[in-house]
């Protein structure tokens, strides 16, 4: 047995469930701190040789994402309905591989603002919702945002946005080169008196920490980076964890139950390996970072006589308050070519509408950015849904591809208890376990905010001189990759699942840290904040372990 490889029967210090944006950091930080760590990742271990510019595979055949053929889901829009199996694609989608969704994300990496953490105090309650302050403030998280920027690798220009919260260090890399969409977006926004700024991106603008600079291939959104220029945990945290000799990452290991002893403490994690054999990995403590969909599912699957509602669920809030940031879009066509298929997805952002403003008549705010979104096939699918969908006029519009851009408006999602994930009472996955059931309906404020932000996007496109501007229809959400809020943090055990250090209120050696920890939704683009939380959580968890407090 080589160093850092463990047997199930060995009690390791930590099992980390999930190897994505948060799990990768937790594994690295805890193993660098000297603890023995086993990471269980349900998806495969892939590398750059596996990554292609293949739209069919990545967008239509669940190439690196959760596949409803084996991991089905059901969906309903309210609790009084019977949830129906989803067809075509998952309601809650994530990248299922080592590195998780940090592999296929776009890398739009703005920090949350100070207002995100205490908006409830600033604005007052929203009736019928779980709108609440966080148990921490921006200042608590600032050092860890800085860690993300320097350890993960973020390109950007400090101080460029007048709306940015205080920071202690500049970005380690300059912004990526501006694209034509960024130039036009900046031009339009400045004409309106707004303050567009270079997008902070988790993509190398120059060689950084052993990874090369971006080659501008254009396939970030939904794809894995073939150059390792994208700052995915697959390329930084995971290998750094393994290099300690203390961390073993087990791919194709599907965690299905966290075991508990009669004293109420967790003892290890039960999982299927690639051959569907069951194992129990023993551990002193368990850290769940399986994402906002699978984390609450695993806790609910871990119900026992001592924890009949599910593990860590005495509040009844495991799986509740699912928040799916609403994203509205504006299409624009210009006179000359932009060639949006080249380079990173986003180069300019506007935060002038970030803060909620009660005068608008609803709660909500957001960030806008300029991008094409997906590459040819998916772009053409959108196009067909927007205007003439066949014939010479459709063909003419297809040929506008190089001259087109999209303004994307990232909004808020109010935490509503009925918006939730739980276990479907009937449907089972390919391993015989209850499927994920999703209940979701956008809060009216979320839709009002989406329309408000879309109007601002239209104004920017028009001010930029677009020949044609099109609004994407705003309808109720039925699917998302924004998996937030389902095991929220808080000081009060009756209204939260984990405390301010991500420790379960009721199980002292169980920690939860990923998108599920968020109390409010930010304005989309949550990965940066999820990772800051992970750095902070890892530091505290390591201290607890050293002091014998786990």
């Amino acid at each position, binding site marked *: 047995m080589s160093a850092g490889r463990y047997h199930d029967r060995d009690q390791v210090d930590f099992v980390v469930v999930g190897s994505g944006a948060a799990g990768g950091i937790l594994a690295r930080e805890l193993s660098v701190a000297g603890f023995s760590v086993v990471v269980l990742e349900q998806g495969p271990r892939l590398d750059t040789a596996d990554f292609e510019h293949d*739209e069919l595979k990545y967008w239509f055949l669940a190439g690196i994402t959760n596949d409803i053929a084996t991991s089905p889901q059901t969906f309903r829009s309210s609790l009084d309905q019977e949830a129906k199996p989803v067809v075509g694609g998952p309601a809650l989608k994530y990248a299922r591989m080592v590195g998780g969704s940090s592999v296929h994300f776009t890398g739009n990496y703005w920090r949350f603002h100070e207002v995100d953490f205490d908006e409830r105090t600033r604005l007052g309650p929203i009736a019928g919702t779980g709108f609440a302050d966080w148990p921490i403030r921006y200042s608590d998280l600032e050092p860890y945002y800085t860690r993300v920027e320097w350890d993960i690798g973020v390109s950007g220009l400090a101080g460029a946005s007048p709306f940015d919260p205080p920071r202690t260090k500049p970005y380690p890399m300059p912004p990526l080169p501006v*694209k034509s969409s960024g130039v036009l977006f900046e031009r339009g926004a400045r004409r309106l008196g707004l303050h567009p700024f270079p997008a902070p991106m988790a993509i190398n603008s120059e060689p950084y920490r052993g990874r090369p600079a971006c080659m501008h291939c254009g396939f970030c959104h939904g794809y894995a980076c073939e150059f390792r220029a994208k700052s995915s945990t697959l390329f930084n945290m995971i290998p750094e964890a393994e290099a300690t000799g203390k961390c073993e990452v087990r791919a194709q290991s599907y965690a299905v139950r966290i075991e508990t002893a009669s004293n109420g403490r967790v003892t290890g994690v039960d999982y299927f390996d690639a051959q569907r054999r069951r194992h129990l990995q023993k551990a002193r403590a368990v850290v769940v970072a399986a994402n906002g969909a699978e984390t609450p599912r695993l806790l609910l699957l871990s119900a026992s006589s001592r924890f009949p509602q599910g593990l860590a669920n005495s509040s009844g809030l495991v799986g509740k308050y699912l928040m799916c940031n609403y994203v509205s879009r504006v299409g624009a066509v210009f006179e000359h070519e932009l060639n949006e298929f080249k380079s990173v997805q986003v180069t300019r952002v506007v935060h002038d509408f970030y803060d909620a403003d009660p005068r608008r008549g609803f709660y909500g705010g957001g960030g806008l950015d300029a991008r094409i979104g997906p590459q040819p096939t998916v772009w053409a699918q959108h196009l067909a*849904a927007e205007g003439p969908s066949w014939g010479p006029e459709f063909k003419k519009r297809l040929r506008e591809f190089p001259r087109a851009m999209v303004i994307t408006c990232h909004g808020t999602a109010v935490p509503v208890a009925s918006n939730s994930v739980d276990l479907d009472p009937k449907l089972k996955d390919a391993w015989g376990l209850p499927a994920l059931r999703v209940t979701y309906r956008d809060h009216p404020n979320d839709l009002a905010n989406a329309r408000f932000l879309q109007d601002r996007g239209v104004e920017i496109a028009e001010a930029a001189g677009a020949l044609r501007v099109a609004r994407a229809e705003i309808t109720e959400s039925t699917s998302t990759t924004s998996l937030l809020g389902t095991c929220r943090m808080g000081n009060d055990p009756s209204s939260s699942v984990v405390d301010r250090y991500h420790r379960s209120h009721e199980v002292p050696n169980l920690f939860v840290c990923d998108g599920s920890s968020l109390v409010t939704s930010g304005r989309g683009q949550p990965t940066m904040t999820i990772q800051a939380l992970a750095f902070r959580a890892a530091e505290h968890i390591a201290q607890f372990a050293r002091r014998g407090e786990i």
Partner: protein
Amino acid sequence: MQYDDSLWRSRRALIQSLLATGALAAFGSWSEIYAAAKTTRTDARKTVLTTEEFADVDAITVLIVPTDDEPGAREARVPYFIDTALGSFFAARAKEFRAGLADFQARAKDAQPTLGAFSAWPSDKQISFLKTVEKTDFFLLVRDFTVIGLLTMPEYGGNHQGVGWKLIGFVDQHVFAPPFGYYDRDYAGFKPYEPKSI
């Protein structure tokens, strides 16, 4: 819901149609299907559809992306792509597709009892008929498949020799350098804001 990093969102009709195209319920592993389709389907031969079905599918795809002074769906070998897809990575949709096609053919016969197969009609009559069925699930499915067959990697049997990419102006290349387009050529650089500007 999500469209961006968060991939999808909103625009239910669009996304559902798009996602529906990706249905793959019958398969446990896309990789086998993908490998098979990708390595074997670069030639033009059909395996699933009958000759008559194939001819009508061909006729519909030609109406969706017509051939003019530039190639369209036919030159991209979209009908062969669809045939391949129904026999492999979209096999889960094959039954629905053929039922939809049968319904399409029956409606066409009702509309023009004397003209024979849809594929043999004069194009003006084809166009007027297509307008009457353009909201049907079958037409939307063919449209989605046509777009995918036109623009996805040629290894899957469509986008023959990259004609779809050439048509829309996409360049299949893995390394680019700025300037990327017309508007970023003369960008003067980011001008910081005065602190008082907000």
